[in-house]
């Protein structure tokens, strides 16, 4: 078997894992904020952060180029100040995958936090806990199954990200070429056996992730 396939799989898993980690932390924090704090523009923020769900990935990719591209306002600053370039790197692919998959964890986390019985948090406060302790000992454990289900969907979505990733990170074999892009390249080049194998690997990985997510999603804490 072609060794480059395994390099591509490894790179894809690395990108998906980073995107999942970033989304887990950001999605939990912002999901909690949207569920528990009232502030002006709350629903607008939710709508903007949900946009990646409905916008074409190429549009997202274009937005990312405008922001982190060589001449983008953040990209130029990063390059001038730190000498960091994100375009055509695997880190750029992580940013693209994170952005595209973010609504999945945000929606799950917000719904999970909104489903936590406020009486339990009150009980914890009366028993002497600080607000941080209430969060880590009651709120987060109660919301965790929902957050975890959303996080697994993020992982599956990141594995298959194509459009935004191609625009931001390109298709450099062994460097930024992920599975979904490699499938496209293989088909274009008429390498059907490689395409077949890549498609099977991608499908099996996604099915496993969805099965795991399905096992967690129906969990409802009993009172």
């Amino acid at each position, binding site marked *: 078997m072609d060794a480059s396939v395994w390099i591509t799989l490894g790179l894809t898993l690395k990108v998906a894992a980073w995107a999942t980690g970033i989304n887990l932390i950001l999605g939990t924090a912002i999901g909690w904020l949207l569920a528990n704090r009232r502030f002006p523009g709350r629903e607008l923020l939710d709508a903007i952060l949900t946009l990646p769900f409905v916008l074409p990935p190429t549009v997202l990719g274009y937005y990312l180029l405008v922001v982190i591209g060589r001449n983008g306002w953040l990209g130029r600053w990063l390059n001038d100040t730190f000498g960091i370039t994100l375009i055509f790197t695997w880190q750029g692919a992580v940013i693209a995958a994170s952005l595209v998959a973010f609504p999945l964890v945000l929606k799950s986390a917000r719904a999970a936090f909104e489903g936590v*019985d406020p*009486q*339990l948090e*009150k*009980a*914890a*406060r*009366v*028993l*002497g*806990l*600080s607000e*941080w*302790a209430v969060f*880590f*000992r*009651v709120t987060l*454990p*109660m919301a965790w199954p929902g957050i975890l289900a959303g996080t697994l969907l993020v992982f599956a979505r990141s594995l298959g990200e194509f459009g935004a990733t191609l625009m931001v990170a390109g298709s450099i074999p062994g460097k930024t070429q992920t599975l979904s892009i490699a499938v496209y390249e293989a088909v274009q080049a008429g390498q059907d056996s490689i395409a077949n194998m890549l498609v099977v690997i991608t499908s099996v990985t996604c099915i496993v992730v969805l099965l795991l997510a399905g096992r967690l999603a129906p969990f409802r*804490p*009993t*009172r």
Partner: protein
Amino acid sequence: MSFDVDIMKTVGDARRRFQLQVKFTMQARRTVIYGPSGAGKSLTLQALAGLLQPDSGRISFADQVLYDSAQGTWVPARRRAFGYLFQDYALFPHLNVRQNIAFGLAPGLRNPSIAVAGEAVEHWLQALDLGEVAAQRPAELSGGQRQRTALARALVNSPRALLLDEPFSALDPELRTRTRTELDLLLARVGIPMLMITHDPEDLEWFGEQALYLRDGRISERRAAD
């Protein structure tokens, strides 16, 4: 004297407004605030516990000022050291009975382990007959066991007073009488002041050494004519 209360709180929006204006002094070891649902009982109890900040007024307990809008004083719930029994008990569903009871003894960021032990935990497990279900989660308990777990959790920290929100309403009628007797004995043993809110006249009869009547957000010493 234990509680001395004079507070105002308005809740709701422009269409549905409810104004709570409560003034009373607790003059007995056992005081019951009796009133129909929607009279403001829960709001009052939550204000005493520190779970709800009034708009104005003053709350003190045994010479300690817990809330004073004029002075800007507000002691948060976690520093008030009261036991609170919630109407549906609010047991932590992800923790077993033992962990629920020990919950308030560990103030840090981590929950007690599933085998948490200690003199206080063992004492209350035995005292409330929960030894056999110590490793079970709340979902596996009977109504009476849940209530006893919630009581043990509230009492394990040696609170200064016990606040009870409709403590028997979630129980079967047959169980209520037995549980009232048990609570009666328990209160006599721990010897701390108790304030109960209820809409059940029998609770008032059993525990109302001092009876206060709450209706439409106001308290009176006498029962309003129905």
